[in-house]
């Protein structure tokens, strides 16, 4: 295979478009793809402040790297989720990326600042904390962005993530979620910051290749709590289809965004409607007490019970 641009031996093939690029041309192609999406979807401008949600993985670090290369004002934010060695290593990767480039990396420590960790949030039915972990991340990324005056939160969600989410929402016919899925989620409340996904048309194989070629040191291990997660099962199904039909994931997602979303859109809102402020923390919510506060109460109870059982001191109560 030869590079689509310079005809040198290729390194990264893009099966859905039957093209390939060499290691010299690939990073430029990748950054152009991201830039084209930022511009086309009007995600943000260079005079705006972007907060990148950083996990230490390939997608978020590649996104941060691209935004800086493209001249955007992008700071990072990392949440210490308290998932043992995995969290420690992902924190190290995030901090090292920021330190090597003199970047600002905001951090929230769930255990120290809020009295619980993600392993305290296991769902009783699935035995997984993934859904609760998503709530934790959305809450804190939004809160820090709003408190510090960022214009937009950018996440590293890629084509595979978005196609898997879409697949899950179709399998379960979650029409409300289907109507809200998209690369830009507009603000619907003064405390709800706009959210964007600049990598949503790039596969995770492509973000991994970018990270390897640009020598971005990211955490390769999978989150130990995600083993058996439904999203991984959906990705496996979609990758089986992709083997036979290159481009199937892309057509599934992009076709939905172009054609299907309008048909299932239930309200004409982007993040949520009828928002008011949580009676405890003041963050936007559709109920009196927001999902995060209800969930963190349960997490703190679990953490305290664990501490009592194993003789450790419970973490301090947060001042939310």
């Amino acid at each position, binding site marked *: *295979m030869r590079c689509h641009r310079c005809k040198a031996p*290729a*390194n*990264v*093939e893009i*099966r859905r478009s039957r093209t*390939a690029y060499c*290691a010299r041309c690939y990073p430029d192609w990748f950054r152009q793809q991201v830039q084209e999406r930022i511009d086309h979807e009007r995600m943000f401008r260079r005079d705006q402040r972007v907060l990148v949600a950083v996990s230490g*993985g*390939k*997608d978020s670090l590649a996104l941060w790297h691209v935004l800086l290369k493209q001249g955007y004002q992008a700071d990072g934010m990392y949440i210490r989720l308290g998932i043992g060695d995995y969290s420690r290593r992902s924190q190290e990767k995030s901090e090292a990326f920021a330190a090597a480039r003199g970047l600002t990396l905001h951090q929230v420590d769930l255990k120290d600042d809020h009295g619980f960790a993600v392993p305290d949030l296991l769902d009783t039915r699935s035995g*997984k904390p*993934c*859904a*609760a*972990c*998503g*709530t934790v991340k959305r809450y804190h990324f939004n809160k820090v962005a709003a408190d510090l005056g960022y214009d937009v939160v950018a996440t590293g*969600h890629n084509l*595979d*993530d978005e196609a*898997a*989410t879409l697949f899950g929402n179709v399998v379960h016919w979650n029409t409300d979620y289907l109507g809200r899925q998209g690369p830009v989620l507009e603000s619907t409340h003064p405390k709800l910051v706009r959210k964007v996904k600049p990598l949503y048309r790039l*596969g*995770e*194989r492509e*973000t*991994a*290749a970018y990270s*390897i*070629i640009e020598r971005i040191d990211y955490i*390769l*291990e*999978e*989150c130990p*709590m*995600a083993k058996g*997660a439904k*999203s*991984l099962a959906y*990705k*496996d199904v979609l*990758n*089986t289809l*992709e*083997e036979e039909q290159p481009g199937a*994931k892309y057509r599934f997602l992009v076709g939905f965004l172009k054609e299907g979303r309008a048909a299932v859109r239930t309200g004409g809102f982007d993040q949520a409607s009828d928002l008011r402020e949580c009676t405890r923390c003041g963050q936007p919510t559709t109920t009196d007490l927001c999902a995060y506060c209800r969930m963190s109460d349960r997490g703190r109870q679990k953490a305290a019970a664990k501490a009592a059982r194993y003789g450790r001191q419970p973490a301090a109560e947060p001042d939310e």
Partner: protein
Amino acid sequence: MRVTILPAREVKEVDARTVADLLKALGLHRDAHLVVRGEDILTTDVRLTAADEVEVWPVISGGAA
């Protein structure tokens, strides 16, 4: 050839003529892995020899809500 599968660095001896054959022999999806020789990512049509040493990098992350 000697194949090291990340992140656990499990080592296997595999006979395969190309990168595509290698992934197939290992039962791995092409869209979920990258094959790296030295510092070079390899496209699936690259021919391999018994003397090659390659790494297989998984690219899937998950668990997001």
